[in-house]
């Protein structure tokens, strides 16, 4: 795991920073659920794009990997979106 992190340290730092920002914004806009849902959508899109760019850079992109990122993004978005209903 550490090897993986060192190998793509910049990408993971970007991801970690973005996630921290999303968390802060999501909590800061409470109790406005509408903006929270926009944040959730942005988070899902960001994560999918992050995966796409990382694998594209490493030249290991394929449909299966991108489907996985899409599915993970969808699940993450649903977990947060449904709680705001």
């Amino acid at each position: 795991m550490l090897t993986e992190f060192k190998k793509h340290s910049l990408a993971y730092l970007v991801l970690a920073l973005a996630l921290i920002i999303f968390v802060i914004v999501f909590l800061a806009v409470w109790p406005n659920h509408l903006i929270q849902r926009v944040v959730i959508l942005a988070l899902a899109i960001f994560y999918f794009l992050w995966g796409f760019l990382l694998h594209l850079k490493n030249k290991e992109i394929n449909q299966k990997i991108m489907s996985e990122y899409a599915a993970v993004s969808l699940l993450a978005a649903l977990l947060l979106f449904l709680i705001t209903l």
Partner: protein
Amino acid sequence: MKFGHFCRHWFHPQRSNNHRPKILHQSSFLALSALVVSFAVLIKVLENQQILGLTANISPEEVMRQTNAEREKLGLTPLVANSKLTQAALAKGQDMLAQHYWAHVSPTGTQPWTFMKNSGYVYQLAGENLARDFANTPDMVRAWMNSPTHRANIVNGRYREIGVAVLEGELEGQETTLVVQMFGTPLSSSYQSEDNLTVANKAEENLALSNEPEVLATFSLPSPPLSLPALFSPLQITKAFFLAVIMILSSTLLYDTIVIGHRGAMRLVGKNLAHLFLFFAIAFLLIFFKGGIVG
């Protein structure tokens, strides 16, 4: 034996699952998405049928106490409970439940101050805050304080009296707890304006105000919650289920990373570490999420 094989197939990277635990396959993520949607729908149905309790831990006295606590922080005089304002708040809440609307003005055009007038409350200044579906008073008052327009009502130094009603019923097809908070300054009252000028003798201006009342209002529309014991509110049950899903996925991702790292095998799959980062962030948000929307 079959159970052991099942567990290995779903949680251990091996040949039967193409060296990736089945639960981490794209199809499983989609199936889990369908599962969490189904669970959320089920909870909503049970909530609406009142199988899951819908008793908020909110009382008018506590709302008044916390409202005054917010005012005292700014050195403002506490509001005094007024039975006519309370009656007006109750009438407004009952009207909202009866006519199924969530707004300051009813579908028939009835304004908030109409309820005040009907209860016999004669004012020079009036305001209204609304909230629904909060599980407890602190969250609700915090939500109001986070909204500039609600906050303006709560910390308006010109208000003298308050009336609060807490009602339960069906609103727009959803079981809800509705809170109506009405503020007022009686026509006979003198008050200190923001620049500390006494305006008690501005009778004409006050009369004009009573004809065209200043209604400072907005309403918060929070989200889920409420239950028999607070421990088992629909929101908390949903949170617990979602967190369990995340925990299973995160544990499997961690285990898969360790096993594959130990084997030194190469696979063309998504980054487990990235998925872990994401799920930890989601788990954090789920844990600290509170209901509430400002509309």
